[in-house]
């Protein structure tokens, strides 16, 4: 049970990260490696705010989002204004953020075990009925994830959202509409990294600690989730793409959990995860073929 809850919690937290990766990778067609830096950046901001300044936990969410958005703007400026290639501008930001994260958090490990956080504060504790105590985290994460998802869905239906999609598909159209495509890219990157940073913020509070290496491989998890989600649910119409991305992330975490729970040699976990990942991809491809015939 605890494992299932852990899968759901982590899956949805990384689901928010995956939403960010979805914007850059699928919509903007921009392989953004900033994610490995902006995920721990959100976590670093959070532990600093809670530990150093005693900021109410709920405020860390918007502040972490804004912090991440700023990081995204920097990546965008480096790419658009300084004309650095997309992959490289992400790598530059990711590398630089390592130092900034250490500086913001104060050290490589920061614990906030004894502090209030979004899951454990007087308000939440007072409204949680006894029988829901174990499900408190998963409910709160679910609510935040849903808010993030619906806000993103809403944004995608605005004019600015349409332009964002157009830049990735065919940027000539955007230029012909008299809109600066560089600006649209910067906006997209800032929203994406804001979401990633938000996900780091929640992760730090769920784990009640910050560790400098939590960002390593974050972009890979995000990409895997996006690909699992979008390819498995390609033909499912009642699911929005954003929902499938979040479900993809939960499935990815479930793969890891299955490998662990099956009692396979712990040293083989990563390989098993890779194989399960491959199986999911192949299954979804088969489905596509069947539909095509």
């Amino acid at each position, binding site marked *: 049970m605890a494992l299932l809850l852990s899968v759901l919690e982590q899956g949805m937290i990384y689901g928010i990260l995956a939403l960010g990766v979805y914007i850059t990778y699928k919509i903007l067609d921009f392989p953004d490696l900033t994610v490995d830096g902006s995920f721990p950046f959100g976590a670093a901001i959070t532990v600093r705010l809670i530990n150093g300044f005693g900021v109410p936990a709920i405020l860390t969410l918007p502040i972490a989002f804004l912090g991440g958005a700023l990081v995204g703007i920097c990546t965008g400026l480096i790419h658009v204004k300084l004309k650095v290639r997309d992959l490289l501008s992400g790598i530059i930001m990711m590398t630089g953020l390592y130092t900034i994260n250490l500086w913001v958090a104060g050290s490589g490990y920061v614990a906030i075990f004894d502090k209030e956080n979004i899951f454990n504060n007087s308000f939440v504790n007072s409204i949680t009925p006894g029988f829901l105590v*174990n499900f408190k985290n998963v409910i709160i994460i679910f609510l935040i994830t849903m808010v993030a998802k619906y806000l993103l869905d809403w944004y995608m239906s605005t004019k600015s959202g349409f332009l964002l999609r157009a830049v990735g598909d065919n940027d000539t159209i955007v230029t012909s509409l008299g809109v600066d495509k560089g600006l649209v890219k910067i906006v997209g990157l800032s929203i994406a990294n804001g979401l990633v940073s938000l996900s780091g913020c929640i992760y730090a509070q769920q784990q009640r600690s910050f560790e400098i290496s939590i960002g390593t491989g974050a972009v890979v998890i995000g990409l895997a989730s996006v690909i699992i989600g979008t390819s498995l649910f390609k033909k499912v119409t009642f699911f929005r793409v954003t929902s499938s991305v979040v479900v993809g992330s939960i499935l990815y975490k479930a793969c890891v959990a299955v490998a662990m729970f099956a009692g396979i040699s712990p040293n083989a976990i990563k390989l098993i995860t890779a194989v399960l990942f491959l199986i999911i991809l192949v299954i979804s491809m088969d489905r596509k073929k069947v539909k095509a015939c």
Partner: protein
Amino acid sequence: MKKRILAAVLTAVMAMGALTGCGSTGSKDNYTIGIMQYAVHGSLDNCREGFLQGLAEEGIVEGENLTIEYVNAQADNGTSAMTASNFVSKKVDMICAIATPCAMAAYNATMNTDIPVIYTAVSDPVEAGLANEDGTPVGNITGTSDALAVDAQLKMIREVLPEAKTIGIIYTTSEANSISTIAEYKALAGNYGFEIVDSGVTAMSEVALAAADVASKVDCITNLTDNTVVSALQTVLDEANKAGIPVFGSEVEQVKAGCVASMGLEYIELGKQTGKMAAKVLKGEAKASELNFEVISEPSLYVNFAAAEKIGLELPENYKTDAYQSFDEIVVQ
């Protein structure tokens, strides 16, 4: 009809008896411990081995009355967190967490349960938020720390190198343990007339550059338990050998691999000490929340004569007899 009811009742009673029978043996004579280790690493493996030895000395033997579930988190925080939840859902009798990130994840997962956590190889439990300033636990969690005996190490370096003025230290900027140990080195170095020259790296690939730079500036190098630098120990040794200066280790594995000497920890011993604490908690003699974390009080001297000879360094005469363990060859793993 009556017979049937009787049979049903009897079956039910027997089944209940069987169930309760199982229950009592499960809780008293057989323990389950979930061990979560952060990474594949010689010292951490020794901790685990020592932990099992310590338990065995107290009569809790794997395979007889102890079931071990072992997971290596592969240096991944997500995996650590999930492992801890997995242990909680399996309702293990205790979680043994090896290295700081695992200890933090285990504490986080068990906070609302009554599963005790015993950690080891955590350099600074206070900094990691696992213990209060006075050494008392913050919750149902305790264990052993592998904090270095900085003072003893400095004293030994002074004995070996009476003329030396500077000591170089290479560390990883992200490792909180290293940063706090360096602060301790800097505070104590003056007492022995040393000056510390430190150089921070962020990844293993930078160790070679930092080592070459430090080696050109100092009279000797001393190691911390810094995971990244220790993993690149051979690189550090190469650069130091080129410069003809000795490298001092922080624990036995490093001395075996070519460091000249160390006043250091024996991780097997540390593990044993942890195992004994765990046995106390399992047997109900003490609660994890009542035991302060422990450190190894007396560091032991480890010497590698082959490494000293390689750079033409003469070690004090008494080291041959005084060393807890000495090596006559360099064993590169």
